[in-house]
């Protein structure tokens, strides 16, 4: 029990990398920048591995005698900064890190996948002028993300939450000379503000109702009062859900994620697919006790998740930018995770989070490899036939596509199946959610195989004939992630759920049985294969069929290509009025009213005072002399009259009058 895990090293090492590369990066040689940038996440990954081994030993070696094993800790393991952070009245908040099964899984994903993407970036960003700046931002992101994951209370989590938003902003706008990239960064930041507002209100309500922000204390209080349902808990949970929807790009705040693809592709893989956007799911799982006490909030989470899943999947059907297809697919998969949370299957959601981190990071990195190979082209219509030229990329993309489509035995199959199964067991509403999820699975399989066919099969439509396979630094992470995308699900939902149970509670699947689960799995796989078959018919040979369908349904096609006009809708309803109001305030209230008014007022006072005082300046010597004499008389009067006595007698008269 006395063993130390040095959790604070996990965020601090990337932060040191950020400081070194951020401050000195311009002057350092490239090999040194690379070394610093890669060592930081690798070292914190090693710290996490050490914590994993020592935290998990008792489970595998000796489930009962924890204290007998040396160098082993029991989870949850708490590490608190000895100096109190905030101490105001009854509210005491410490800067504390907590390691339990949930944060352990997240940390492994964040630092592990994070390190792989750092390695990939060495090859991908090798020729970029902002090499040091890129890696310092990437390290900064890892710092904040690990703070978010390790947080023992909501405020520490909020620090990480805002920090990853900042890193995301900086990396989306990495090519800041490009206006679209700078705009996308701003959009992401501003849309996230709405979610953060919800998170903040939720925290205020937590302080008001629980007097603490520490997750374990809130959980203990709620577990002690099982009858406390709904009411203010629903409001708190919904506020937190708003925050999660902002960060995890759910309806109605998903709009920033597709634009975030303006950033470099490894950034899209790390931040906007594998780690940061899953922070919302993580937060819901972390505060799951609140949601468990509010059926309404759970219903909202499930509905938002299912709606987002199918909504984003339909948009992904017709997108032509390879990264945008993946972006909408990410939104859709995040919807699955929220669906899992909404049916109280938190461990299934975290399971999907993990496998999704593997295969979506893989797909993004493979897409980056394709884009890198054909000179920055991202349009699917200008690809095709790359199978021969990029055999490795083709192979790993195939694995990723099979995994995301949910084909047995790839990773995505297990986690997606677990979520759908948990949803199916939730009564009538659950059946609807299950059906929506199944439909989404069909669409997912279709658009992922569409991407696969358009990129790698058929005839080459690229003008760039010198496509070449990427360097070794990029191939390594691709292969490792491909292996994880195959094997990542083999641990099985049962073991994974049992492992996470101390953190997020047991799965609500005890009413089911293995026959039902098997039938549902088979249905899910058949649906996925059906999606593949449709894509095969559409995109294998001539590309005339999609055009025919598009021509037959012009309204639907237009709606999908224009992403349901949501951006335009927000633009007209929110952005334009806001711009008009702020323009009015700036020009009339602030500029004309406050600034102009102040200038006029000050000028007026000076003019008016001058007009009066100017009379003194008559030029008449005798009037000056008279004022001089009057002044001297006034000074004499002031000095000679015994004011204290006079005032005392005056007040005595006053009091005497009041007395009568």
């Amino acid at each position: 029990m006395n063993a130390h895990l040095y959790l604070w090293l996990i965020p601090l090492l990337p932060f040191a990398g950020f400081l070194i590369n951020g401050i000195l990066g311009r002057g350092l040689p490239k090999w040194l920048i690379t070394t610093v940038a890669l060592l930081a996440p690798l070292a914190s990954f090693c710290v996490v591995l050490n914590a994993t081994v020592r935290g998990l030993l008792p489970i595998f070696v000796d489930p009962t005698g924890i204290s007998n094993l040396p160098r082993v800790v029991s989870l949850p393991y708490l590490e608190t900064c000895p100096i109190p952070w905030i101490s105001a009245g009854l509210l005491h908040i410490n800067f504390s890190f907590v390691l339990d099964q949930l944060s352990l899984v997240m940390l492994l994903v964040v630092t592990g996948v994070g390190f792989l993407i750092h390695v990939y970036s060495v090859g991908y960003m090798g020729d970029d002028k902002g090499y040091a700046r890129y890696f310092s931002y990437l390290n900064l992101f890892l710092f904040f993300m690990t703070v978010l994951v390790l947080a023992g209370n909501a405020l520490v989590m909020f620090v990480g939450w805002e920090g990853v938003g900042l890193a995301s902003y900086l990396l989306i706008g990495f090519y800041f000379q490009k206006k679209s990239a700078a705009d996308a960064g701003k959009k992401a930041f501003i849309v996230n503000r709405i979610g953060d507002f919800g998170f903040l209100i939720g925290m205020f309500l937590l302080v008001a109702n629980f007097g603490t922000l520490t997750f374990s204390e809130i959980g203990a209080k709620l577990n002690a009062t099982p009858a406390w349902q709904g009411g203010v808990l629903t409001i708190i949970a919904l506020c937190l859900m708003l925050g999660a929807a902002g960060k995890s790009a759910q309806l109605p705040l998903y709009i920033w994620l597709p634009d975030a693809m303006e950033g470099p592709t490894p950034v899209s893989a790390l931040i906007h697919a594998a780690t940061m956007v899953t922070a919302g799911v993580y937060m819901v799982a972390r505060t799951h006790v609140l949601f468990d006490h509010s059926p309404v909030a759970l219903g909202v989470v499930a509905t938002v998740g299912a709606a987002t899943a199918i909504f984003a999947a339909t948009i992904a059907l017709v997108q032509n930018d390879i990264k945008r297809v993946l972006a909408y697919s990410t939104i859709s998969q995040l919807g699955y995770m929220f669906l899992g949370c909404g049916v109280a299957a938190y461990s299934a959601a975290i399971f999907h989070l993990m496998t999704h981190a593997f295969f979506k990071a893989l797909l993004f990195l493979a897409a980056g490899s394709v884009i890198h190979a054909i000179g920055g082209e991202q349009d699917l219509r200008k690809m095709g036939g790359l199978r021969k030229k990029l055999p490795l990329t083709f192979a790993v993309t195939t694995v990723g596509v099979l995994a995301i489509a949910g084909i047995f035995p790839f990773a995505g199959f297990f986690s997606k199946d677990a979520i759908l199964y948990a949803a199916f067991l939730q009564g009538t509403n659950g059946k609807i959610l299950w059906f929506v999820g199944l439909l989404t699975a069909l669409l997912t399989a279709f658009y992922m195989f569409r991407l696969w066919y358009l990129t790698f099969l058929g005839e080459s439509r690229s003008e760039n004939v010198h496509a070449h396979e990427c360097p070794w630094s990029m191939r390594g992470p691709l292969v490792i992630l491909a292996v994880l995308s195959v094997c990542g699900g083999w641990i099985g939902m049962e073991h994974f759920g049992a492992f996470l149970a101390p953190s997020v509670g047991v799965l609500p699947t005890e009413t089911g049985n293995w026959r039902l689960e098997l039938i549902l799995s088979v249905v899910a796989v058949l649906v996925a294969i059906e999606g593949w078959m449709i894509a095969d018919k559409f995109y294998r040979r001539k590309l005339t069929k999609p055009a025919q369908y598009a021509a037959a349904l012009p309204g639907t096609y237009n709606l999908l290509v224009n992403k349901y006009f949501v951006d335009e809708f927000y633009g007209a309803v929110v952005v334009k009025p806001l711009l008009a109001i702020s323009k009015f305030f700036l020009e009339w209230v602030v500029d004309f009213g406050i600034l102009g008014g102040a200038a006029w007022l000050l000028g007026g006072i000076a003019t008016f005072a001058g007009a009066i005082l100017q009379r003194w300046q008559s030029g008449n010597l005798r009037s000056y002399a008279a004022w001089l004499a009057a002044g001297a008389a006034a000074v004499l009067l002031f000095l000679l009259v015994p004011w204290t006595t006079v005032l005392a007698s005056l007040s005595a008269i006053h009091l005497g009058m009041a007395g009568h």
Partner: protein
Amino acid sequence: MSSLFTQEVPLSWYLLLSAILFSLGVVGFLIKRNLITVFMSIELMLNGVNLSFVTFAHQWHAVKGQIFVFFVMMVAAAEAAVGLAIIIAVFRARATLAVDRIDRMKL
């Protein structure tokens, strides 16, 4: 009779005289139009103050007051020299010594 010569003049008489002299100076300074009369009024004020200095010096047997009077006389002499020179210059320029007419100090 002897008491009349042996008895000292009381302090208040000197101070009263000093105040009368000073006030005459002030009034003259304020109401007279001729610049030279104004100038003389200033001298009157200075001497009124001098008298009170000497009075107190005598009363308290302190020599400081008398020294101060010498300073005042010295400054008054210098001021008379400079002041009369200015008055002559003003008269040459404007052909008048009426204070009300000399109002060019106002820009």
